[in-house]
């Protein structure tokens, strides 16, 4: 009986459990979904009410090696400034000058943590704070202590450049001094420059003019200055041989300087009366307008000799080829590596880069000027030594892993780096 009872008696709980389980699940579902819904609401609410974290560790420091008109601000970004999902939309930098009213000086993007404040005054004190901005909130950092920008007289971070300048310039000046004392200095022959007198002589024999093109840049380019220093020598020779020189220019200032130079050449040669301003004429500042005119001069006047010395760009090829087509002997030179191949292809002699700057010293044959060439060789020696020692040390450092070699390499390399 009892089992049956029990069986019979067990039936209602089974039934109950059958009903109860879904009910429990339903209840659980309801409570869970309700709590989920409540939870979601709470998350949103929490976010909306959580204050935005400000930037921290805000520091205002003097900007090194300036004229006392800059300060450097650094800070740790707000912890709410997370890439993509972060709340921070921008930072605003505020400046307080001499305890006055704060005013905004910059608005920066999120994730920025430095700012250089410029156009300040050495007689004022400054405080700063940074405001982190979000869509619905903002947070102000602490205000920095008052600071006054300081002036430095020398950029000590460029000590290496100072030393390098002193060494190279010193070497040039020492050799100039040595040459002045009368010591004979040897300088090797430079083919392109040896040919200058020969080219002028050719124009004399042919009875045709010399065309001198000083490039298309103005007097604010050292290549133009180099060209004018060579012109001084050419003008003297031209005056000696009594031949015609024609110099169309693309810049008014070059015209003025070239006239002075040629005039000086004629005076040195003892023929000041033979000089006229017409030898130098201004054409136009326009690169290709100038080229069109020079091309015309070349084909109409058929110069015996063409000098193309100075700063040249794309027009180098047109000028050199036209000069070549009229049968002129051409001496070219520029410090623009991209134009050198065309001069090499179309001209008889080409002064490559450095040779252009050495030309006037070489042509003048003046001891002082020649001494300067020796001086620049010292610079080349330093460059070559640095390359050889540096490459050897850094290669050995990778082979042996020796720390001191890496440090020595870095030291050598650092002497040639100029950073802001």
């Amino acid at each position: 009986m009892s089992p049956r009872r029990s069986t019979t008696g067990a039936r209602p709980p089974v039934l109950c459990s059958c009903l109860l389980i879904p009910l429990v699940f339903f209840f659980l579902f309801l409570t869970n979904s309700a709590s989920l819904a409540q939870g979601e609401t709470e998350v949103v609410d929490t976010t909306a009410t959580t204050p935005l974290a400000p930037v921290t560790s805000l520091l205002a420091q003097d900007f090194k090696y300036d004229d006392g008109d800059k300060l450097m601000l650094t800070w740790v970004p707000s912890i709410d400034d997370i890439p993509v999902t972060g709340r921070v939309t921008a930072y605003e930098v505020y400046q307080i000058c001499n305890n006055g009213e704060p005013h905004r000086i910059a608005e920066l993007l999120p994730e920025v943590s430095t700012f250089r404040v410029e156009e300040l005054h050495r007689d004022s004190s400054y405080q700063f704070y940074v405001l982190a901005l979000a869509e619905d909130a903002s947070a102000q950092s602490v205000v920095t202590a008052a600071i006054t920008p300081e002036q430095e007289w020398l950029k000590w971070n460029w000590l290496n450049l100072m030393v390098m300048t002193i060494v190279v310039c010193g070497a040039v000046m020492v050799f100039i001094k040595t040459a002045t004392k009368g010591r004979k200095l040897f300088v090797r022959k430079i083919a392109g420059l040896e040919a200058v007198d020969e080219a002028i002589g050719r124009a004399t024999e042919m009875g045709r003019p010399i065309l001198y093109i000083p490039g298309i840049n103005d007097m604010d380019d050292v290549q133009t200055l180099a060209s004018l220093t060579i012109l001084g020598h050419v003008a003297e020779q031209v005056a000696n041989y009594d031949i015609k020189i024609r110099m169309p220019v693309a810049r008014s200032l070059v015209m003025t300087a070239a006239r002075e130079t040629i005039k000086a050449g004629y005076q040195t040669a003892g023929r000041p009366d033979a000089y006229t301003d017409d030898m130098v004429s201004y054409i136009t500042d326009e690169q290709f307008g100038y080229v069109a005119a020079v091309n015309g001069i070349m084909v109409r006047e058929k110069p015996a000799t063409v000098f193309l010395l100075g700063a040249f760009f794309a027009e180098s090829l047109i000028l050199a080829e036209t000069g070549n087509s009229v049968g002129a002997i051409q001496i070219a030179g520029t410090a623009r590596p991209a134009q050198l191949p065309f001069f090499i292809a179309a001209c008889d002699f080409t002064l490559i880069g450095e040779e252009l700057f050495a030309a006037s010293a070489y042509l003048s044959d003046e001891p002082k000027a020649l001494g300067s060439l020796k001086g620049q060789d010292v610079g080349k020696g330093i460059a070559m030594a640095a390359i050889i020692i540096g490459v050897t040390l850094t290669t050995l450092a990778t082979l042996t892993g020796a720390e001191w070699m890496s440090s020595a390499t870095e030291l050598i390399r650092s002497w040639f780096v100029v950073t802001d």
Partner: protein
Amino acid sequence: MRREIPLIITISVGFLAILSFFSPPFEPLGEDFTLFFDIIAVFAFFLGGGNLMRVHIDKLIKRKKDWGFSIVTLVGFLVMLVAGLGKIGAESITSDITREGLFSTLYYNVHLPLGSTMYALLAFFVASASYRAFRAKNREATVLLIAAFIILLGSTPIGQMLTNWMPEGMSILEIPNLAVWIMSSPNLAGQRAIMIGIGLGVVSMSLRLILGIERTYLGKDSG
């Protein structure tokens, strides 16, 4: 005075320019000098423009060869001056003449196409220069020729077609790869040597100018 003052100016300005590099209080001088130069250049334009006018008027008066073309130059010059300085055809006195008016029209329809055409002439001259370079007169010129040829071929599909049969291990010898390698290694070496040389050459020449060793540009009676 005529001899000394220009030299004193060159020396002092030269040293101040160097100082502006190293000393923050002197730093603005570099910019100031550039600004002064720009202003001086405008004044100098009176001399240049005046010279242009004088040369062509002289040619016209003396009926020199091709004097008729001098009229064209003078008319072009004066029309551009009047159109630009007078803002002819521009809506107001504050208008940007490079965008509207006769000045702009002449610029876009005459000046610009002429400049582009002269620039495009380079294509023809490059052909004749190539012919000259490719005759390879000596060993150095042959080296130049080979390097140029590889770069030229490497930039065209022909370069790829000629050497794409090469096995994987020798891919560096395929012409396009070789062209890239030449540009990034031997080319770089040459460029560096030239640039270092130029850097030192400029230092030496600048010192000669600043110290007054070179001064022909100042005329004879100045030094």
